[in-house]
């Protein structure tokens, strides 16, 4: 547990503060998510000799973004993140009644409680799962990477065909370059530059930063210029009174209980647990309607406490498979995985043995990050909201500059910028045609690993393909993968069994997380 010692090192604390600040800014501004921000900062962190600071910052960014998103949800009803949508429902109503501070406070404290509890859970759960994972053989690794890719693809976006297409394009990009196992050149088109393949950072920056900027550029004429401004009346009352505390603590716990496991499952992100939490809190309030007046629809504090806790807890949940198995369960997790790989830190069972200090420091930094978030944000609300006044053209011009900076610093030549632009243009069309972006990232990052494990399995078994199905663990995971393809259609299947009409044809989740 000397991870804590490392974290309290002033330099690392600085990174945490920086991360949280950046995250808040990013979360407040709509259209820019933590995935994009981490991607933009990746090339900069290349030159850090010590990855710990970088990871602390990334974790801070993620937490900050979550909170920034809920701040705008509550204050001006424009969720900065898709996971903050649930918070906006009751939170904004509270703001309209002048109780914004209470809403923000319950969100902040709830996030802190959830974050702390779920980080503790992470600490306890990590080792056993790590031990389980160390028994994995290459067939299991193959199966599990396949599961991650398919599951996220199936649940993200509106169309399975388009999601799978995104995935295959990502896999293809991952193929480009020199094949490590045989030395054959693949799709290098005769140029030396492509021998190392397309750097994942270029893909991420191109798709997220440049693609988004191009997309915004094309919608200029039709989107309003400035978002709504904070009105004075919203911050009338003080923070939480006794009644608020009483009503909040249970939703905080319930939200945590929901968020943590859902974060660990491959899915779009934090949307499921937050909406689930909202629904559960609403039902509970209706049932208890006789004792306390049900304020849902009018600013019920439970509707903010629960979802916010769920939101925060799901991040620690995401870290469980990411750190123990190297399995990303959302787009942001995939970007963080890329960050790990860049620093030559390979998450998985080895991680806890080889890089114990790093991991525990990271986990300890989560505690600290949570705390910092709480301390920094509550008093400074009015200031944060000023951020929204940054004019959009300047904002995106800035993103462009940073994107180019990052990409350029990879190699020192404009060639990478051109490649990033090409990928950015692809990203632009993907957005126009409603293709989800997360699967591409997953394909690029996980594809090579998956192929390597596949071929290694075959080499070990001397070409016997049944090895994937005879090992029980692999078989189970493969079955899960196939099932994952059907999960989005669950509402329809269930409705058909019940004989009723499904209210929704297909489950879809956003991919911001």
């Amino acid at each position, binding site marked *: 547990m000397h991870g804590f010692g490392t974290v309290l090192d002033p330099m690392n604390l600085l990174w945490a503060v920086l991360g949280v600040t950046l995250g808040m800014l990013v979360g407040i501004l709509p259209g820019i998510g933590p995935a994009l921000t981490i991607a933009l900062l990746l090339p*900069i962190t290349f*030159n850090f000799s010590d990855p710990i600071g970088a990871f602390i910052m990334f974790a801070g960014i993620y937490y900050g973004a979550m909170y920034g998103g809920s701040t705008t949800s509550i204050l001006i009803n424009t969720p900065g993140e*898709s996971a903050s*949508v649930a918070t906006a429902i009751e939170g904004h109503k509270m703001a309209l009644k002048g109780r914004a501070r209470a809403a923000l406070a319950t969100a902040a404290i709830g996030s802190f409680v959830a974050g702390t509890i779920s980080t503790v859970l992470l600490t306890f759960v990590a080792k056993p799962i790590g031990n389980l994972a160390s028994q994995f053989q290459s067939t299991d690794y193959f199966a599990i990477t396949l599961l991650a890719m398919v599951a996220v693809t199936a649940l993200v976006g*509106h*169309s399975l*065909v*388009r999601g*799978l*297409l995104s995935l*295959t*394009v990502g896999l*293809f990009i991952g*193929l480009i370059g020199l094949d490590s*196992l045989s030395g*054959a*050149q*693949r*799709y290098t088109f005769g140029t030396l530059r492509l021998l190392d393949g397309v750097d994942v950072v270029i893909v991420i920056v191109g798709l997220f930063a440049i693609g988004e*900027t*191009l997309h915004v*550029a*094309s919608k*200029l*004429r039709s989107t309003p210029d400035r978002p709504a401004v904070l009105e004075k009346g919203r911050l009338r009352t003080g923070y939480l009174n006794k009644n608020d505390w009483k009503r909040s603590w249970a939703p905080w716990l319930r939200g945590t209980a929901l968020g943590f496991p859902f974060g660990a499952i491959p899915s779009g992100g934090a*949307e499921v647990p937050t*909406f689930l939490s909202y629904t559960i809190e609403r039902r509970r309030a209706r049932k208890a309607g006789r004792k306390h007046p049900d304020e849902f629809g009018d600013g019920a504090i439970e509707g903010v406490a629960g979802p916010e806790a769920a939101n925060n807890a799901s991040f620690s949940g995401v870290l469980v498979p990411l750190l123990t198995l190297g399995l990303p369960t959302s787009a942001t997790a995939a970007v963080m995985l890329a960050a790990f790989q860049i620093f030559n830190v390979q998450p998985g069972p080895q991680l806890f043995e080889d890089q114990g200090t790093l991991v525990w420091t990271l986990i300890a930094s989560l505690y600290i990050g949570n705390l910092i978030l709480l301390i920094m944000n509550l008093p400074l609300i009015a200031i944060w909201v000023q951020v929204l006044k940054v004019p*959009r*053209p*300047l904002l*995106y*011009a800035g993103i*462009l*500059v940073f994107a*180019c*900076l990052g990409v350029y*610093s990879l190699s*020192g*030549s*404009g060639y990478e*910028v*051109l490649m990033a*632009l090409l990928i*950015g243009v692809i990203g632009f069309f993907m*957005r*126009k*045609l*409603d293709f989800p972006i997360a699967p591409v990232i997953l394909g690029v990052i996980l*594809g090579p690993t998956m*192929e390597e494990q*596949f*071929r290694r399995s*075959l*080499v070990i078994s001397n070409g016997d*393909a049944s090895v994937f199905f005879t090992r029980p663990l692999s078989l189970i995971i493969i079955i899960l993968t196939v099932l994952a393809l059907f999960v989005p259609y669950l509402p329809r299947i269930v409705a058909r069994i019940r004989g009723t009409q499904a*209210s*929704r*044809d*297909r489950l*879809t989740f956003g991919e911001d997380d």
Partner: protein
Amino acid sequence: MSTTDEPVKASEVEVEASRLVRIIAAVVLVVLSGTFLVGVFDIRSPKGLDPAGPRFFPLLVTGAWLLLSIGYLVEGLRSPRTTEKGDRSWFEPVAISGLLVLYAFLVVPLGYLIATALLFFVAARVLGSRQLVRDIIVAVVITVVVYIAFTQFLDISLPEGVLGL
């Protein structure tokens, strides 16, 4: 994520691009995947299509890509003709793209400071900003700050170009 109570059919979700663009995109995907599929056989592989060799995975991936692209094409052909929504403009994205191409070529000869400041200023302009003086000031300030931060503090080298700084 849709939370309304009206049924939302996945295939009816509004896609920004028109049906024509979708079909063109599908055709492009089919052509690309087909080309790459054929390209599998350009890969040097002593064991041919052996699953443990370098050709197998690309074969699977490009093959799946081709099949999915055909599926997407069919889906596009079957979708109803939608009315054109005319409020998307092509000028700005093309302009930004052209800007980035120029930047890629000019950043070394002109040097980071000048090229990036120009990039910021012109991009902001294209994206809608109309305040000339403010934009120039911000462009220069940001570029200089970034330049100093990176070359002095982070030890990353950025091209000096014309100014020789």
